[in-house]
């Protein structure tokens, strides 16, 4: 990432470099499984011999955030757990992407109660929202392919000044 940050113009050299780096990143997305509840079981099922996720490049699901670039938040996030999820997200190195798997992470799901965060986008920037309760493993693989396409289109100039905007936190919406 340092090399690309120095090359500010979009010449022939940088577009070819972008294409190669984008292809390398998209073909080996290592997910960080933030498996919290039922969606974690379908995520495990996406890794089993029937819906093999390894053939898409996600050979290992590392449980340490330092080695991953995609965080799949699978399961209901409560207020108590949200601090832990945010801490793990902050520990991941850039560039990183987030999939919100299932209804509970997208909008709070079927749990409209006092302790469930109604959607993780209140404290995390999300790239893909998956519908389903739980989404089938084929659905998760579709989301992975969409993320791979998105990663393949990124350019060096997207990563130069990374500053996440501070949004107001809306609670108990």
């Amino acid at each position: 990432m340092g090399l690309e940050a120095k090359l500010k113009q979009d010449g022939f050299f940088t577009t070819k470099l972008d294409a190669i780096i984008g292809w390398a990143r998209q073909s080996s997305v290592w997910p960080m499984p933030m498996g919290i509840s039922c969606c974690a079981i379908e995520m495990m099922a996406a890794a089993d011999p029937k819906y093999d996720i390894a053939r898409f490049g996600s050979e290992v699901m590392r449980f340490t955030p330092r080695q991953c670039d995609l965080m799949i938040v699978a399961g209901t996030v409560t207020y108590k757990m949200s601090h832990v999820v945010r801490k793990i997200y902050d520990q991941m190195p850039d560039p990183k992407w987030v999939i919100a798997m299932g209804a509970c992470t997208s909008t709070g799901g079927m749990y409209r109660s006092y302790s469930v965060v109604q959607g993780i986008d209140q404290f995390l920037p999300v790239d893909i929202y998956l519908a389903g309760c739980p989404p089938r493993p084929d659905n998760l693989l579709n989301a992975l392919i969409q993320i791979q396409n998105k990663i393949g289109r990124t350019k060096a100039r997207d990563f130069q000044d990374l500053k996440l905007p501070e949004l107001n936190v809306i609670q108990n919406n």
Partner: protein
Amino acid sequence: MTIKEIIKNKLQENFKDASLEFSEYKDEFVIKVDKKIIASVCKLLKTDTELKFLICEDITAVDWATRKNRFTVVYHIFSLKNNIRIVVKADVDEADCSIDTVSSIWRAANWQERETYDMYGIKFNNHPDLRRMYMPEEFEYYPLRKDFPLMGIPGSLPLPKK
């Protein structure tokens, strides 16, 4: 004599001056006791060689939302030897919201009473470790009481910044 009559007789012998109520509903045997003698009643039910209620299955409370005797603490206990499950209940008032603990009798009651404290705010006297179970320690309300709204109180639980 059936096992229910044996239990009834033993309790009435040992606690002559206390007010015990016995009832049956859909083959469940329910004993209602005064909250001051709950520890000694449970001790008798566990240690007596004929009764032997060794398993404490569940402890919970019911909020009736009335002025007097707002809560009822409910104990479900099971006897392996006689293969019977009974229910013991004790009324707790809101003004004096405490009852004796039975965790010295059944160690399984430790966490179950902590959960009842977390959800309803009923304090258990002489409990070895009365902390909240599910909600974070800084939470100030008791979620399962009838006056706590389902969606919670905005601002009572903090969220990390985006």
